[in-house]
């Protein structure tokens, strides 16, 4: 088995399977065959291809060579014909010229230029297609090779070159000109245009990409199909080209030899040259090998593809074949391994084939079947054996387990008193470490195991008599000393003759049980003592009938009764028996008794004050506590009531309550006194002033002096009294708070405008308002009052001037802040701070500033109502005001007002923004005795585009209206004014113009006299003090009818 495994893993590492071997072999065979055949084919084909390519090259070279040769031959023939048929020498000069011109014209474009030279080499006529040579432009050519050769009778064929600067590829021909006497008397030199020749050469197809070029006798490049190339490379040494080298070497046998080399255009070519007959040139034909050998290369490619396909096919085929052979062998191997591993169950699926593999597979299948049968028989026998063993073992184990694991001690002892066998529980019970320890320690059980040796004698007697003992209590010795209380069961085991072989039995340790019983008894007695000695009365009654089971002595004492008269009495009698009353003196119904409620409803009563009447008829105050007593499953089994006699305590408390009420009353009186005193004091001062100045006025009047000075003072004092009253009125109006969305920033701005008129100029008012509108739900008038109040206080604190700063911002107060400022809840607030740089306050003052009637102002200056009403207003708005100040460092009042919720805010914003400030251009007359109101009103109204006329009194207003009444569209009239006052003024105005529009502005509400006045013919009413926006809205509304 191990061996098999080892081998198989070894196989896994470097298996050279039969399949792979076969596959590789077939691939190898096919590859070698294909490559060998392919290489052979290519070799043969390449040889043939080369031969045919070379042949083609040679033919092309010869063809081109012939073409050039014949072209040049044609040109020289044409020239010779001309000379043969024209007696040039005999003609006069101009006829010579005409003749040459004719030659040029008639042979166009073959000759580009013809020059006639005399025997000395002087050009006599030169006819060109490009230039008309004037006589001074003619030269001598005696040194030229062409001239000299022709003069000797030869025909000169010059190299291919560009004619002068014309860009015309030409060949110079020179021929002798003979006189009729046949002697040479001149030379004709003609430039043959060969550009056309190259067009013809281009027409010869040299494969697809082959080309031809011409080299001169020196191997220099002179002509080519592409003129651009000739222009670029004319005259370039071409001897590096193998055919050109052959040509220069002038070896006859080299003609037609084909070379392979890098050709004219830098590409691998096969090339051959052919000399051009009648010239000293050679034509070179080059054809790129990629084209020349294209078919071989293609063939190679095909062969490679074929070889590849063959290899793949061989691979696939080899794989398929080998799988057919090797597959079954693999299966056999796997099956053998499987048998080896002991699995004879899985059926081996053989190969249904007729060949050797099939036979082998068949034999293998038979072998498996035989093995399988044998194995099955063995397995059955083994199973039977095992079952028997198991049954035996199990039964033994069962009893052993009982013996070993029993919690009770089990023992067998000999009649002689020796221990035969004990179980672990017994050993443990007696405090021994092991069975051996016990056996060694106890030789005679009656002496050493029983606490009292006679016990055994007695037990044996009982057994002898009854046959067994049951639950016999007996004390055994513990190894560590002390006894163990046990309960023993035992009987005698006898043999066939009735003789006792041994005793056996069980022992249970009951020591703990005995001890618990003792403890419970002692606890109970302690509880009993506690109950009996408790200073509170305790009564316990059973559920459900309320029969009293227990009443402690204190209960009996409070009730003033004996035990007998209380215990074992049920509900029906409680009410009469106990006489319990509620604190108001009414008798307590039996079902409302705390104990009853505890038992019947499970309710707990804590410290309920009640009155109990004892048997002597005395009422005792008790504090009653009651609770149900529940068992483990939550059922009410009984109820307990504990009550304490508090009659003495109750009497003391009543006395204290009376004292407190008296105290409160006294405080109230004191407060009222302060209030009355404050106002009275102020009024007294004012009255003193009035009286004093009145007397002075009388005196002055008596003396005939001017008393107006004193009257002024009187009026001033009266005005102060009016102010005081106004303040009181406002203070009392506090309950009429009407909340609406208000932008604090706007209120501050508005108030500041007003303040600029009312507080001394030395005070610099600054605002530092947040950019966003700070919306709160507030009574705008009241908040303005707060602002004005704080500002006035600040102004009073800065008699020498200073800075008054208003700030607003949104703040979010967290729990931490709130913890230090108990009066406020966490959340979003708008913070308005009013800071002055005045005298400041000390700590003592600071704690009292919000108290009513507290003032630091000198007598006569303030009533002390200001800050307390501010405090009241802010409280009413759910806000909070605090003040920070130190003497000499000014003061800051911080007002937190709850910010509007976001959703409300949006709505409010819309509302506010919808309230575009209305204006107009009408003319208004504003009548008010207060400079501040006039100034403020004028500013507001003019700011909104109105024209404003001002009057300080009713009289002034009438006078003005009398003059310019036609222009006035609206009169804004204060009612409370010195002089004729508003009420009279409006009457007069109506008398002047019944259609006059009057807007009443009053600090009084629109009731009573004010209402009457409005009825008289006012067009509208506005409450003072008014806000800018209210004023503008009301004015507009009144104007628009």
């Amino acid at each position: 088995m191990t061996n098999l495994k080892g081998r198989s893993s070894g196989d896994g590492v470097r298996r050279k399977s039969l399949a792979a071997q076969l596959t590789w072999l077939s691939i190898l065979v096919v590859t070698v065959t294909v490559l060998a055949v392919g290489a052979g084919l290519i070799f043969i084909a390449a040889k043939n291809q080369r031969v045919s390519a070379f042949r083609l090259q040679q033919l092309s070279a010869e063809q081109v060579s012939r073409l050039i040769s014949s072209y040049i031959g044609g040109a020289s023939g044409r020239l010779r014909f001309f000379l043969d048929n024209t007696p040039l020498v005999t003609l006069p000069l101009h006829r010579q010229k005409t003749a040459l011109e004719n030659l040029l014209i008639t042979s166009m474009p073959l000759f580009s230029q013809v020059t006639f030279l005399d025997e000395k080499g002087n050009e006599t006529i030169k006819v060109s297609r490009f230039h008309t040579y004037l006589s001074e432009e003619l030269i001598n050519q005696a040194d030229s090779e062409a001239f000299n050769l022709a003069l000797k009778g030869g025909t000169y064929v010059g190299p291919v070159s560009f004619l002068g600067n014309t860009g015309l590829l030409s060949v110079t021909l020179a021929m002798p000109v003979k006189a009729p006497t046949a002697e040479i008397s001149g030379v004709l030199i003609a430039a043959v245009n060969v550009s056309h020749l190259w067009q013809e050469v281009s027409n010869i197809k040299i494969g697809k990409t082959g080309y031809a070029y011409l080299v001169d006798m020196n191997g220099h490049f002179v002509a080519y199909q592409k003129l651009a190339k000739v222009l670029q490379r004319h005259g370039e040494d071409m001897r590096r080209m193998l055919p050109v080298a052959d040509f220069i070497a002038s070896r006859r046998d080299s003609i037609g030899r084909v070379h392979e080399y890098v050709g004219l255009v830098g590409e691998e070519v096969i090339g051959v040259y052919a000399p051009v007959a009648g010239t000293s040139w050679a034509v070179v034909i080059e054809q790129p090998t990629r084209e020349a050998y294209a078919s071989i290369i293609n063939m190679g490619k095909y062969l490679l593809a074929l070889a590849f396909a063959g290899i793949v096919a061989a691979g696939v085929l080899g794989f398929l074949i080998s799988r057919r052979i090797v597959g079954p062998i693999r299966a056999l191997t796997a099956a053998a391994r499987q048998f080896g591993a002991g699995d004879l169950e899985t059926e081996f699926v053989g190969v249904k084939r007729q060949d050797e593999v099939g036979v082998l597979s068949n034999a293998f299948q038979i072998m498996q079947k035989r093995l399988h049968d044998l194995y099955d028989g063995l397995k059955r026998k083994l199973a039977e054996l095992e079952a028997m063993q198991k049954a035996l073992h199990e039964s033994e184990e069962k009893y052993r387990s009982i013996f070993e694991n029993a919690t009770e001690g089990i023992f067998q002892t000999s009649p002689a008193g020796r221990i035969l066998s004990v179980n672990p529980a017994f050993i443990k019970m007696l405090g021994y470490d092991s069975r051996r320890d016990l056996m060694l320690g106890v030789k005679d059980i009656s002496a050493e195991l029983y606490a009292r040796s006679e016990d055994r004698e007695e037990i044996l007697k009982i057994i002898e008599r009854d046959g067994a003992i049951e639950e016999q209590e007996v004390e055994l010795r513990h190894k560590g000393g002390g006894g163990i209380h046990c309960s023993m069961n035992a009987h005698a085991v006898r043999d066939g003759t009735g003789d006792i072989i041994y005793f056996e039995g069980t022992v249970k340790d009951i020591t703990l049980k005995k001890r618990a019983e003792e403890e419970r008894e002692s606890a109970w007695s302690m509880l009993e003592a506690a109950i009996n000695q408790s200073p509170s009365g305790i009564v316990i009654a059973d559920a459900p009938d309320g029969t009293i089971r227990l009443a402690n002595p204190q209960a009996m004492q409070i009730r003033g009764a004996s035990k007998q008269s209380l215990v074992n009495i049920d509900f029906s009698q409680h009410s009469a028996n106990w006489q319990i009353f509620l604190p108001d003196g009414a008798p307590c119904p039996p079902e409302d008794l705390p104990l009853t409620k505890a038992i019947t409803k499970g309710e707990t009563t804590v410290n309920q004050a009640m009155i109990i009447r004892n048997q002597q008829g005395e009422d005792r105050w008790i504090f009653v506590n009651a609770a149900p007593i529940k068992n483990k499953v939550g059922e009410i089994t009984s109820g307990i009531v504990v009550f304490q006699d508090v009659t003495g305590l109750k009497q003391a408390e009543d006395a204290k309550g009376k004292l407190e009420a008296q105290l409160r009353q006294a405080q109230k009186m004191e407060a009222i006194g302060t209030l009355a005193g404050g106002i009275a004091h102020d009024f007294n001062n004012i009255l003193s002033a009035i009286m004093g100045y009145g007397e002075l006025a009388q005196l002055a009047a008596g003396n005939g002096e001017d008393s107006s000075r004193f009257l002024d003072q009187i009026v001033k004092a009266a005005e102060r009294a009016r102010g005081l009253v106004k303040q009181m009125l406002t203070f009392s109006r506090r309950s009429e708070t009407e909340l609406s969305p208000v932008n604090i920033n706007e209120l501050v701005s508005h108030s500041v405008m007003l303040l600029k008129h009312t507080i001394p100029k030395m005070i610099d008012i600054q605002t530092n308002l947040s950019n966003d509108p700070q919306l709160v739900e507030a009574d705008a008038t009241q908040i303005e009052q707060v602002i004005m109040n704080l500002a006035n206080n600040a102004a009073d604190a800065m008699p020498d001037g200073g800075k008054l700063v208003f700030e607003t911002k949104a703040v979010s107060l967290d729990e931490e802040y709130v913890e230090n400022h108990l009066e406020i809840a966490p959340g979003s607030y708008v913070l308005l701070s009013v800071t002055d740089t005045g005298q400041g306050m000390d700590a003592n003052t600071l704690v009292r500033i919000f108290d009513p009637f507290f003032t630091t102002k000198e007598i006569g200056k303030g009533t002390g109502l200001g800050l307390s009403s501010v405090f009241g207003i802010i409280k009413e708005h759910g806000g909070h005001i605090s003040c920070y100040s130190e003497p000499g460092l000014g003061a800051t009042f911080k007002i937190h007002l709850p910010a509007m919720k976001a959703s409300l805010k949006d709505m409010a914003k819309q509302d506010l923004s919808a309230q575009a400030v209305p204006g107009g251009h009408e003319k208004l007359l504003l009548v008010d005795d207060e400079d501040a109101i006039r100034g403020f009103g004028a500013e507001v109204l003019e700011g909104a585009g109105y024209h404003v006329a001002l009057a300080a009194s009713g009289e002034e207003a009438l006078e003005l209206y009398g003059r310019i009444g036609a222009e006035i569209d609206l009169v804004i009239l204060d009612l409370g004014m010195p002089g004729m006052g508003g009420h009279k003024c409006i009457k007069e105005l109506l008398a002047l113009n019944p259609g006059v529009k009057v807007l009443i502005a009053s600090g009084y509400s629109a009731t009573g006299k004010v209402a009457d006045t409005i009825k008289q013919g006012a067009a509208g009413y506005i409450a003072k003090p008014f806000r800018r926006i209210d004023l503008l809205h009301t004015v507009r509304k009144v104007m628009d009818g």
Partner: protein
Amino acid sequence: LSADQGKQTAGPGGGYISILELEAAAMQTKGTIWASLLCVLILLLSALACQEDQHAHETRVVKVGALFPLSGDLKDKGVDSANGVRLAVEEINSSGGIASMDGAKLEVVYVDTKGKPSHGASEVERLISKEGVAAIIGTYQSSVTKQATQVAERLETPFIVSVSIADIITERGFRYTFRIQPKATFYARDQVQFLRDLKKLAGYSVQRVALLHENTDFGTSAALAQKRDLRKYGMQVVADVSYKAEGVANLDQEVAQVLAAKPDAILTVTYLMDSVLIRKALAKAGAAAPMVDTAGGTVSPEYIGLLGPLANGAFTVAEFSKFAAGGKKLNERFKRHFKVDITGDSAHAYQAVLVLKEALERTGSRDKAKLRDALASTDIGKGDKLVLPSERLRFDKSGQNEFARLFVMQIQNGELVPVWPAQYATGKVKINK
């Protein structure tokens, strides 16, 4: 990025600091890597953008060389030609450039030949190798064109010859040379035909013809062709006088030589100053024989300007007339632009640009070999693209415009008036018999 890093480090609470810190550190490292990658990317992109810019400029523009005599004797001719190019290029660019090349604009590099062949040739070399032009238009003078086209051929750059009549220009087997103007043989053919038609037109028979021509390619090739055709129709060449036109100051002697042969007509091949001198000399000699020029000095507005009434009566064969159908509209635009009448030279230069544009549209490439092939297959029929008075514009194998059409104009009352052939004639031939 920095804000992101901030968030990463600020994120972890005290409890799991170790892992989160590691993570944060990793993120920071990653952040740094990303940042540097981003930087590199930005640098690369901006570099690319620069390249793109350059590239974009290259793709937006097709550079063309315009090679004309912008100084020297032939300055006016050169400027006329250059103005033709200028007008065409402005019109093409303002109407969207080369549509097939994403509206690429033509950008012309104007170069002065100074009237000298060698200078012209070296300028071509410079235009191609330094300026990188895709094609060249030029040059007005045959002698300059002859050499300039050689350089262009060597450097395989298309050369559109607007004006230059020497035959050889298209007879050298050059593949990159294309000529709009008719070649000398066409001129001679039509001049001789006109002389023959004079009998019919004016009852004037011509038998004796004198030739007077400048001696460069222009004059030589034209005169050679004239001779061929005159002989072909059995007319006599009674005089053949040539001269050097460059810097010429007096041609009285040459004119006298011509008049001595008592010709019935005189064929001239001239540039501007020589043509003026010839006309003056003829007038001085009181010659009455009709003089027919070969679209030389006579077609220049300056000719009439310089000669005044003396110019009246002169004939010239010409390729273009502002009076011809297509010429009128073009002349209006040209005159609006340059405040002078259009000449044949301008018109040919204009046409050369149109031909180039049309080829670019077809090939969509500034590859010079492709452009050459496109030019070779040019075939423009009557329409907006053809301002010359012919049926069609197509190049033969040699690069010569096969359909170049010529007519004869006579200066009458200080204006060039087409008088032949009949379908273009707006005036009648006037001859002092």
